[in-house]
């Protein structure tokens, strides 16, 4: 009896045309209007205004962009920005991978404790954390004092007011993003995959490079992109921990606006930063978005 009904149901479903997409969703723009209007007013308009200024001040033309790329001071800032963002991303990946691995394989208690610490550090005020690093990184700070006390070094390392200090402080802030991006993919890995790889003849190195890394590539790419993009525009940490010679793009923009009142050049720098960010985002969507991963 139940079978007959089931069969009938299947037939009916096959005969019927595919169900139309729910109408509500197609005409569903209305609720988004306030949010879209807000974005238009507070994001798109200022961006356009900036673009306009970068092209018109002091006169029409691309002179601001040319200055940005050709003047060695500004080119240096661009180089610093990429160097810091690249180093922070790379070091976060190197530190984040084993940390995420630990979270995936450690006993539940330890895994939750460490994860809690990671999250808690994210929730702590950014300024407070950066000031803490100022204390730690000083010539007479805890780190240098400790290293001198152990005899590893004689004179304090130049940590504060250098690119090294900026990178250290930013890695600390960015690391949780890497851990969060890798945690899911790592938890989904099956240990028997590596047993299979091993029996297939793969050494540890081969299992790592040919099985482990490819499977984690989407997570690494996602975390790396978030960190790289955020680092490109980072302001507080570089300005508090870095020196004048290690200026990054966001600091330059602030200085151009606040001290030099050069809105045209500041606009060009901002627009450059925006374009860089959006193109990296496009790369991420094109090659690493999870939906594509599943299809492929």
């Amino acid at each position, binding site marked *: 009896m139940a079978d007959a009904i089931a069969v009938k149901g299947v037939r009916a479903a096959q005969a019927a045309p595919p169900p139309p997409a729910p109408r509500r969703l197609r005409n569903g723009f209305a609720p988004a209007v306030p949010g879209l209007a807000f974005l238009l007013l507070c994001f798109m308009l200022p961006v356009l205004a900036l673009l306009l200024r970068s092209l018109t001040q002091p006169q029409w033309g691309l002179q601001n962009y040319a200055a940005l790329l050709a003047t060695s001071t500004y080119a240096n800032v661009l180089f610093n920005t990429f160097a810091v963002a690249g180093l922070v991303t790379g070091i976060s990946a190197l530190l984040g991978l084993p940390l995420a691995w630990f979270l995936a394989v450690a006993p539940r208690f330890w895994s939750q404790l460490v994860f809690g610490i990671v999250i808690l550090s994210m929730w702590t005020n950014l300024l407070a954390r950066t000031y803490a690093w100022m204390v730690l990184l000083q010539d007479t700070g805890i780190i240098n004092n400790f290293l001198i006390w152990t005899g590893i070094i004689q004179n304090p390392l130049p940590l504060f007011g250098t690119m090294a200090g900026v990178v250290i402080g930013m890695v600390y802030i960015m690391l949780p993003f890497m851990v969060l991006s890798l945690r899911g993919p790592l938890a989904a890995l099956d240990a028997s*995959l590596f*047993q*299979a790889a091993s*029996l*297939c*003849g*793969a*050494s540890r190195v081969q299992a790592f490079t040919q099985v482990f890394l490819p*499977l984690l590539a989407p997570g690494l790419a996602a975390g790396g992109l978030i960190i790289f993009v955020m680092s490109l525009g980072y302001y507080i940490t570089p300005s508090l921990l870095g020196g004048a010679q290690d200026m990054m793009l966001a600091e330059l923009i602030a200085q151009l606006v606040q001290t030099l009142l050069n809105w045209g050049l500041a606009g060009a720098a901002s627009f450059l930063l925006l374009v860089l960010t959006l193109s990296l985002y496009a790369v991420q969507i094109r090659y690493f978005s999870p939906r594509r991963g*599943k299809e492929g």
Partner: protein
Amino acid sequence: MTQAFLELRNIRKNFDSFTAIDGVSLQIPRGEFVTFLGPSGSGKSTTLYVVAGFIEPSAGEVLLNGRSLLGVPPNHRDIGMVFQRYTLFPHLTVAENIAFPLRVRRRPKAEIAAKVDEMLRLVHLSAMRDRKPAQLSGGQQQRVALARALAYDPQILLMDEPLSALDKKLREDLQSEIKRIHAETGVTVIYVTHDQEEALRLSDRIVLFNHGGIEQIGTGEDLYQRPASAFAAGFIGNSNFIDIEVLENRNNIGDVRCPDGSTLSGVPLMGRTQTGKAQIMLRPEHIRLTAEAEGIGGHVTDAAFLGDVMAHTVLTGWGQEIMVRTPRQMFMGPPAGVGDAVRLGFAPADAFLFVPH
């Protein structure tokens, strides 16, 4: 004594204070299909993983061609394995999965391509070569896993319940396929299952596991016809156990008393007891339903026609249900129906006597 191809000597494995396997010893000649059969938790996988090299035994020795495998890491053991779970590399295609063991061995490109083609033909999946594992059914995934495990011509192929996640029809198809592949390649196979039918269908020999030890080793027929223990008798095939008392022992042939007081003579005691409490095991097909005056009395509580056999359940006077299977051609007259009073007849020589511990 000739040296066995693969030999396990007195393997023991403790997990903390828990002993998972104890005193497992076994010799396997080259090319044999051996099945580890036993209930869940009896130590089959642990023993298999000791051979694979993922578990280091607490004591004992594993020898391949007379040389110890202990201390040889899994990737140098030259062993193939198909796991219970699907372990294909999800980022590689079917062909790339099969090529993986050859690529890590840095074999020449042409050789890899030829071998991949050969393996795809062996498991009948040539059409699927460019699919990703997620686009395959469970049965297809296990066939690819089999191809990957055989691609490097391993000395031994291990399989840990590879078909347990598949439905019955597919399982039977793949069983014949595994049998064919064993015949074609001649590889030595150790196959783990808890399904007696699968073990009987596939194996040259069955190693019956129980509580971390080996209960009996033999062909399927050995285990069925000559079970070494009540456990073996109960695990392979259907069986009825009846508590009895041995009254008299004449040259290892006994007179025994059944719970209803009836007595039987001529039961082989197999050197297992002098006199006293014991059990006899009777296969359902060794029992006849008779109208004669002797034998154990009871009445039919269930009767089912199963095509080639009739299956009866008979409730004895002391309240035990006994299964009886009668081949169709053995019927004389209409078969007994539910509620009929019957007597159970059997040849005493068909009874297996065990002494419970």
